[in-house]
């Protein structure tokens, strides 16, 4: 999997309430949700973001509720990958199991090297990130096999339990 897009950088503890505020939880249409992505912290985000873009963040990205709305909102706004120092686990699972967003954990050094507006190219399986705008090449990830496999297959629902067991035991 290869992703090319612009970076949107945030700090620690970007919680699900700022990614998509609770009042929108009665909405289940991803396109409607996307209009409010990151509304709680960055109201201009939806104006700037383009298809295939990447979020770079600090610790505990997605902390808070189990709302899958947060993943839909970000994906339908354009985000395809999130590089964070750590993820909150439900959000992390939701990215993977929907097959919509590739979550990758990064270290402090990678976090520091990236800025909002950088154009990056991400080679997921190879664990390679090219920062085109800076001529940099960084090592990141790669995510574990099961994570790559579920996303590559377009989400958990496309894999039956027997296959899932096989992938898990590899």
């Amino acid at each position: 999997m290869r992703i090319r897009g612009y970076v949107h950088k945030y700090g620690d503890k970007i919680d699900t309430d700022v990614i998509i505020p609770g009042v929108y939880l009665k909405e289940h249409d991803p396109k409607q949700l996307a209009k409010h992505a990151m509304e709680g912290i960055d109201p201009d985000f939806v104006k700037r973001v383009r298809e295939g873009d990447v979020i770079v963040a600090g610790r505990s990205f997605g902390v808070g509720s189990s709302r899958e709305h947060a993943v839909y909102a970000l994906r339908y706004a354009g985000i395809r990958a999130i590089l964070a120092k750590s993820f909150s686990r439900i959000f992390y699972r939701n990215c993977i199991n929907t097959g919509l967003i590739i979550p990758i954990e990064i270290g402090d050094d990678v976090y520091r090297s990236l800025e909002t507006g950088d154009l990056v190219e991400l080679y997921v399986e190879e664990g390679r990130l090219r920062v085109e705008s800076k001529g940099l090449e960084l090592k990141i990830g790669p995510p574990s096999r099961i994570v790559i496999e579920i996303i590559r297959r377009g989400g958990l629902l496309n894999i039956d339990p027997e296959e899932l067991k096989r992938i898990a035991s590899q």
Partner: protein
Amino acid sequence: MTLAEKILASKSGRRSVSPGEIVVASVDRIMIHDVSGVGVFKVIESYRARKGIDSLKLVMASKTWVAEDHFVPPSDRKSASNIRFLESMASKYGIERYYRYGAGENYGISHTLALEEGLVRPGDLYIGGDSHTNTAGVFGALAVGMGHTDVAYALMHGVTWLRVPETIKIHLEGSFKPSVMAKDLILRILGDIGSGGADYRVMEFRGPALKGMNIDERATLTNMTTEASAKSGIMEPDDLVLSYLEEKTGSRPRPIASDPDAWYVDEHQYRLEEIEPMVAKPSSPDNVSPVSEVEGVEVDRVYVGSCIGAKLTDLRAVARILKGRRVKVRTEILPASHRIYRQALKEGLIDIFTESGALIGPPTCGACFGGHMGVVADGETVVSTTNRNYPGRMGSKEARVYLASPLTAAASAVTGRITDPGELM
């Protein structure tokens, strides 16, 4: 092995598992509500349409229950039609255990119902479409919150995939001072380990102090493990829990315990008499300080509600302070379930609340997540018995929300300032 490891080993048909391994485990119980349930059924329906499947059987239908709790009573047409959709899907897929608001023996917040109705048992792998599913770990189950797609998969296939988590041991000794509750302890723990402090891990509470806490108070601890990002919170079921479940369900569950030589990734110890009344200051549950450091901050509103802060024990605590006193600021009290509401009525608590001038609301999640029933305004300072105060969580991003124990919330309602409940006891 620890409790969590034992459960995952047994559910994945293995003799043992160790942290870091990925397992595919069978699921015992599933919960969905009027936000996640709608999402789950949308996922299932679109899967069915995509694959051209006419009739899809949910293998877990009889082990699943539905609670209407977030947007009830509906505040607008969209929430009302979500409820209709949820009802029609539950009946289409044969999910019979359905807690309708305003109709029946009991209804209210999903996690409260799990405890009150004894829907989860020791040793279960229980997954819920809500992050505070962790609460049910109080019964010795591995109770894990998940998103729509995860829950849909478990409903269809009866299994889920999990990374075996490391376990953190929280050892508790002693007993609380009268002005201190489990909420103060969990806030203190959150302050110590931070909001990412239990990422991908399970927090297991142990120690002699648990004996001195009832199920409500213990559930306050497991509930807020979510705010430490824990996969779950868990406790060994003791006689109190086993007898409670026996009474609720008619059969006594088998106990389950961590092995004496179980490995823990980290260990924290607390003596309960050393815990002070605590608050989490705006705008993160781990931004904690003792009440003494923020005493006197002027308050506009007090909110007593949610799965963590409006259990019967919590309402009794509020009543202890409000008895014979009047509230100085707007105070909303929303019991966590219909059963709690009725019991509060019987015990005269509702009388105490109404005489104090407070408002009593229906059992619903309400303003806890900023949905309705008292969302907060720009510039307001709120003391709340709920579990989250992220910016905008209860409404406005410009509001200042302090999370506190029911005792501290009630004391602050009486004085209009953040107040140590000890001063009114």
